[in-house]
């Protein structure tokens, strides 16, 4: 029995290491895009240390690069960070920590650590998966962000190297797992509507606001369309659980 537990923990740690390396590597692209958008190297490093959430970080430098105000940048990054808040109730019962360890656990609660932690069968493996993934991604993400910022700073005009196109591609890669596949019809509709709203609003409102207007579309659809329209929510027994495991599969890289 103890041998099975040890093996499950070792498997979780191996999974954590491979996810950490894969995720840490794309910190290079974040660092380069951040300095291309106009942030300094210390600001770029501070963002990875303090915010530590890839999607929100890309969003903040995207709004800054487009000429948006600080308020729009904070609102966009915060809205993209809401999903991390929803991971808390999934991982907190697995970890059972209090005090400063709870603050640390919250900071390390991201897509990857939640996915690896909640995918384990035993509690010991879940804890190992969460902490090793969280710590591994944190160390590598910050190291590679700094490397990317130094490289990006040395390159010069970002357009010559296509870094502005790389920013668009990075957002496409982040949204792809959420709109691909059969269960994502509603998500694809919302994505299309968001593109139309953002482009239609661009000539008329300050930079950064079109993205927030697109979020408003999603809030209206999410609150108004009956859940039965979504294939993943048709089973009355534990729809949240179904969606959580579906999201975990979608996030797995």
């Amino acid at each position, binding site marked *: 029995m103890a041998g099975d537990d040890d093996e499950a923990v070792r498997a979780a740690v191996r999974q954590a290491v491979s996810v950490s390396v*894969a995720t840490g590597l794309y910190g*290079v692209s974040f660092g380069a895009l951040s300095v291309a958008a*106009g942030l300094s190297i210390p600001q770029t490093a501070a963002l990875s240390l*303090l*915010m530590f*959430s890839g999607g929100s970080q890309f969003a903040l430098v995207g709004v800054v*690069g487009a000429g948006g*105000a*600080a308020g729009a940048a*904070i609102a966009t990054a*915060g809205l*993209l960070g809401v999903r991390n*808040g*929803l991971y808390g*109730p999934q991982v907190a019962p697995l970890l059972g920590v209090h005090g400063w360890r709870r603050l640390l*656990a*919250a*900071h390390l*609660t991201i897509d990857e650590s939640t996915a690896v932690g909640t995918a384990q069968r035993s509690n010991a493996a879940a804890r190992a998966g969460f902490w090793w993934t969280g710590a591994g991604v944190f160390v590598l993400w910050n190291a590679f962000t700094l490397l990317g910022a130094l490289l990006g700073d040395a390159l010069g005009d970002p*357009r*010559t*190297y*296509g870094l*502005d*196109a*790389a*920013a*668009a*591609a*990075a*957002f*496409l*890669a982040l*949204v*792809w797992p*959420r*709109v*691909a596949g059969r269960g994502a019809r509603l*998500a694809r509709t*919302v994505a*299309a*509507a*968001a*593109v139309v709203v*953002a*482009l239609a609003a*661009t*000539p008329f409102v300050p930079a950064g606001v*079109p993205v927030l207007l697109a*979020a408003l579309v*999603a*809030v209206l659809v*999410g609150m108004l369309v009956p859940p039965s329209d979504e294939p993943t*929510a048709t089973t009355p027994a534990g*729809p*949240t659980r179904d*969606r*959580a495991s579906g*999201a975990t599969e979608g996030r797995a*890289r």
Partner: protein
Amino acid sequence: MSDAALWVAVVGAGLVCLGIKLVGHLVPEHWLAQPRVARTAALVTVALLSALVAVQAATSGRDLVVDARLPALAVAAVALALRAPFVLVVVLAAGTAALLRALGMP
């Protein structure tokens, strides 16, 4: 944005994101377990990322523009459909735009 305003954005957004994570660990579980809340949060993420793709690929200031970024985005989409890893997708898009600009496309 000025350097000071950038620091406000960086530190402000960082604290907001950390605060949201902490709230998730502190609120009673059933508060966030409602299907509509979880689904709306997922859709907001999709909408924000999709809008950012559009703004990054097809706008410049308040103008809608078509330049080397759009074909680069198409290359990224093909790479994603073929299940290429994140870093490769980003590098292919940058390479496409850099090549097209070297050939004279805006």
